């Protein structure tokens, strides 16, 4: 049981890393990015491409892919999401849904149906482990992913709290119109936030690739895990995202213990229970309760 809890915590770190960019975009720009999973698969493919064709270690490739993904994030916000957000709350959701389909099909067309993995390009690290105590082993990549998630979430938290740019993004997140009248350019602030979110997506893409295999359509399940971790942990709280990821992984582990096919179901049941609890505890009308349940109400 101890072993399972430890492995669940490590898996939670992976979910938190997946959810980081999604949570950041949701809390700052109020956009549920349904293309999040596809974008991190895209990052995985870019890393794989550099490793396969240019023999660049995925860790070195990250130095190229991260700024590239940040550029993609900036462009998406400036040319697509900002414009679609003017059409109401639903339009950005539909836009990112469409974007996910476009990305998935482009990846499928270009890379085909074969699964890929970054594990062959990181040497022994992909299977090495530490023995914590008698009979309990932890994979090195899983530990590194958890540590990376903690570092990224902590850095983002510090960045948002302590830097002028972070305060600019927080002000824009709270009220873009008021941010504008004190000299902040809300469009620029949102584009920077999107770039940051996509920077974390690049790292999530690396984690996805070194943990296992992916194909063009792997984005959906990753989005689901990221979304559940974000909602369970509470939107807007970066540390909550880490806790949400760990709780989700624990629920999946418990589910798997109850029934061999209960792994995913355990997570989904917990997600629904938490949504229902928030719906019941929230005050106000149906619309406000729904927003509160998903973390959107102020």
């Amino acid at each position, binding site marked *: 049981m101890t072993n399972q809890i430890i492995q669940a915590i490590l898996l939670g770190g992976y979910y938190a890393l997946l959810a980081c960019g999604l949570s950041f975009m949701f809390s700052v720009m109020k956009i549920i990015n349904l293309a999040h999973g596809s974008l991190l698969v895209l990052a995985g493919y870019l890393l794989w491409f550099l490793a396969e064709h240019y023999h660049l270690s995925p860790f070195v490739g990250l130095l190229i892919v991260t700024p590239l993904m940040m550029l993609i994030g900036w462009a998406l916000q400036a040319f697509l999401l900002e414009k679609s957000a003017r059409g109401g709350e639903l339009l950005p959701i539909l836009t990112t849904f469409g974007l996910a389909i476009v990305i998935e099909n482009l990846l499928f067309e270009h890379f085909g149906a074969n699964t890929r993995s970054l594990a062959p390009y990181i040497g022994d690290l992909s299977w090495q482990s530490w023995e914590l105590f008698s009979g309990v082993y932890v994979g090195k990549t899983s530990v590194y992913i958890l540590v990376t998630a903690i570092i990224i979430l902590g850095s983002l938290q510090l960045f948002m709290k302590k830097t002028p740019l972070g305060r*600019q993004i927080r002000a824009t997140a709270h009220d873009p119109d008021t941010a504008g009248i004190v000299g902040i350019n809300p469009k620029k602030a949102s584009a920077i936030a999107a770039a940051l979110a996509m920077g974390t997506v690049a790292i999530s893409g690396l984690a996805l690739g070194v943990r296992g295999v992916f194909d063009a359509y792997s984005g959906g399940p990753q989005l689901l895990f990221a979304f559940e971790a974000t909602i369970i942990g509470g939107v807007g709280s970066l540390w909550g995202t880490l806790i949400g990821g760990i709780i989700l992984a624990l629920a999946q582990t418990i589910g798997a213990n109850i029934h061999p096919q209960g792994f995913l179901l355990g997570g989904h049941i917990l997600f629904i229970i938490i949504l229902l609890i928030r719906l019941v505890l929230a005050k106000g009308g149906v619309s406000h309760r729904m927003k509160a349940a998903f973390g959107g109400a102020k």
Partner: protein
Amino acid sequence: MTHAVSNGLLASDLVKNFGSVSVLKNINFSMNADEAVGIVGPNGAGKTTLLSALAGAFQLDQGSILLNNQDVTEKCASARCNLGVVRTHQIPKPFDGMTVFENVLVAASYGVDADKQTAYQHTLNAIQLSGMEHVANRQAESLGLLDRKRLELARALATQPKILLLDEIAGGLTEAESVQLVDTIKELRRQGIGIIWIEHIVHVLLQVAERLICMDSGEIIADGEPQAVLSNPQVVKAYLGGGIE
């Protein structure tokens, strides 16, 4: 009353419609950067819309706005703030989740091109001038109405405005609180900051305004020396239906 202003605001033929409702109808208005102009008028006269138009909150349907002879009609609110035109809101809109200090600091950092140290100094000055030292480290959402209004003012001051647009900043305050606020605004006048102030509490407004404009149904119906405007029969009819005390 319009005339060319080399140092101030010139708004010409401003028109704004919201759907079929015409909120600003060919507004012509000018002020020097060192003037204090009060705006009065009944609810729905278009006062706040005019202020929003000057601050760049939306695009006009027609007309132009010059600031120091520079055309700012197409410029957004943040660009106008950088040029020195800043507004406060009738209903305070602090950035929740931030302290008072952070609220003001964010304005000091981006309202004007300032390095970190200068931004901190502007923040401290604005907080001091607004009398908010005692609540500087409080979360903005926990403030009472007077302090929220002060925060609106402090945040605007931190951007180093040349012209400050105040929207019913005395509304909802007690007499004593209004006196404190007027003292602060008088200090701003001494510093040479131009002010356009919308206010329903006329006796408070007249302590600062050197010129008064009265609006009704999206038009300026009187503009000039305050007592002359208040005694204008058209103003009396439109605004109060009787004499203004």
